[in-house]
């Protein structure tokens, strides 16, 4: 097998620092949003006692789910022994860490008492899925960190497969935990199902790979390094499979719900009467997030890099729409405490809850995305994560 040379991105050009500064600006906006929300309380957000988890959670959960998915490329290389993926693995691992960091920061900065984070680190309730996730996230950082180390340091290279396998198993458990944050809730009709755990796993495959492909293509285009079609076409086919699987899970989930009379009204809300939620479901999650990317990736369009990038971007947009529908949509529909009865109260019982996110919430969420990108941009400068050359000839040698 041919060896591959990894090299840091020089990162001294004006373009690099402009990129770094531009992303940094969004990190700053995110931080200022946090300070504003923390100072005034959640009263300055669109969240209330009806929609208790808002846009920050949409971004946070999306980033956490995408983080575990971004690790897939590395897993394919070391767990499933595909040599072609080996040079792609270090970027995959750092991206996973960066996305996880971004997501977690948004999550903890949206706490009502973010100043009490230490309490969350020292008081545990093991019947809580949140508590389990605290350990799953910490373990993810540790295992992926070790895995990255085994990839970058020749002295410990022998442990790479073991570390990669551990990280792979851990990430499956982690996304099971993220899906189960919702799956373990009995109160709301759309949650409380084991379906959410595997569905989140397959979503993580799609979102993580879409982000990975965009970062990979951007890194190679902006540094002028050769990136052959072999890599891109292989990964875009994989993305098509993941997106199709997401669509399959979403269809089965809603079909099953539709079959049960008790779920009829909440399904009508999501699929037909939910206004912005319905639009986000059909236009955002299904058409933009699944159908158009599938058409692009499975037809001749998918052979052109620009179209692959468009497909990836649409998968990410669809992913955010999906999180919005999953998190906000389920809360917007009123709790059915007295089935068959209409309900009225000063606490908005029995009515669909509106939600209009405010600027601080949007910028806090975007700040998480920016943190992930900033960490990645900095990491490729200081660590040897990217192969100097990924043209078709170099990649072909790996397979023989």
């Amino acid at each position, binding site marked *: 097998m041919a060896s591959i040379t990894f090299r840091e991105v020089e990162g001294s050009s004006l373009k690099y620092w402009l990129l770094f500064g531009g992303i940094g600006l969004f990190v700053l906006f995110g931080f200022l949003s946090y300070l504003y929300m923390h100072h005034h309380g959640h009263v300055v957000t669109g969240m209330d006692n009806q929609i208790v988890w808002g846009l920050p959670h949409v971004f946070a959960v999306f980033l956490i789910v995408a983080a575990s998915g971004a690790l897939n490329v590395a897993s394919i290389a070391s767990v499933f022994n595909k040599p072609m993926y080996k040079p792609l693995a270090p970027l995959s691992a750092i991206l996973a860490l960066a996305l996880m960091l971004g997501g977690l920061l948004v999550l903890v900065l949206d706490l009502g008492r973010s100043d009490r984070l230490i309490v969350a680190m020292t008081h545990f*309730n093991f019947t809580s899925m949140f508590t389990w996730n605290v350990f799953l996230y910490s373990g993810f950082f540790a295992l992926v960190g070790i895995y990255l180390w085994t990839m970058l340091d020749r002295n410990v290279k022998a442990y790479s497969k073991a570390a990669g396998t551990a990280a792979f198993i851990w990430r499956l458990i982690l996304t099971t935990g993220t899906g189960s944050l919702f799956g373990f809730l009995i109160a709301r009709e759309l949650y409380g199902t084991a379906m959410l755990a595997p569905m989140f796993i397959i979503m993580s495959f799609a979102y993580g790979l879409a982000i990975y492909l965009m970062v990979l293509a951007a890194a190679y285009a902006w540094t002028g390094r050769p990136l052959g079609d072999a890599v891109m076409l292989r990964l875009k086919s994989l993305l098509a499979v993941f997106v199709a699987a997401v669509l399959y899970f979403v269809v089965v989930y809603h079909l099953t719900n539709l079959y049960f009379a008790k779920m009829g009204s909440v399904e009508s809300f999501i699929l037909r009467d939910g206004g912005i939620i319905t639009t986000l479901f059909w236009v955002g999650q299904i058409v933009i997030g699944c159908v158009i990317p599938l058409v692009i990736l499975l037809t001749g369009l998918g052979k052109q890099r620009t179209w692959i990038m468009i497909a990836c971007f649409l998968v990410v947009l669809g992913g955010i729409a999906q999180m919005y529908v999953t998190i906000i949509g389920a809360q917007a529909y009123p709790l059915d405490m007295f089935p068959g*009865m209409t309900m009225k109260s000063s606490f908005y019982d029995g009515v669909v809850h509106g939600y209009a996110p405010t600027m601080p919430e949007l910028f806090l969420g975007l700040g998480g995305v920016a943190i992930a990108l900033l960490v990645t941009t900095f990491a490729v400068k200081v660590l040897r994560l990217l192969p100097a050359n990924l043209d078709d000839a170099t990649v072909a040698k790996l397979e023989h």
Partner: protein
Amino acid sequence: MSDMKPMPETSPNSPERRRFISAATVAAGVTLVPGVMLIEVAHGRPEDQPASSAVRWGMLVDATKCAAGCDECVSACSTENGWTPVAESKHPKQAPQWIRKLELQDPLTQMETNLPMMCQHCAEPPCVDVCPTGASFKRADGIVLVNRHTCIGCRYCMMACPYKARSLVHEPLNDTQKPDVPRGIGCVEACTFCVQKVDRGDGTTACVEACTAAGHNALVFGDMNDPESEISRRLRELPTKQVRADLNLNLGVRYHGI
């Protein structure tokens, strides 16, 4: 010493002395009696003793007696616990509501039912299950509470509660806070069954007192483990239901007439 004034006459039988003694006795009585009474009241549960699982506090809501348009229970709760009534809040959608009146209607028969809805003090509370720090907890006597010091404001309990019983404090609190009802911005809160009153030994809650005072008698509070208590007696006689009984959470609030 001849210039000294003679001492006033203070023989045991002097009227002045008698007046002084009786005034002092009254003063001592006025000072001491409330203290003695407080000691009596405190026998509800001394501070150094934990809540006992021999007791299970519960409430019976007789929806057939709950009057339409009456919100005495809500006002009393707000006054007792120091939360701003929603009508006075600048941010009604974000304002905490520990208890609210629900108006139900059967769309087929048009029958209307009124009832108060608040924390149901489940024996198997989902909020306690999901709380990452253990801030949501159930006392041995069945009262479900939030520890103000360890609640991180993650709102997972609000996602988990099937009764929408919990509120987040969205903004800095004004000075209506009560010394025995700690609240705080960024923390989640809900009906406490007036735990401060229960622990004082009042044996009732503000909403029950208000409902009774208004002459509706729709609410009964008491120890469901004590077969002689009024609530146990009434629960034996009246057919009652638990809201979302399908969830099998074994609620501390039981409804008649729903």
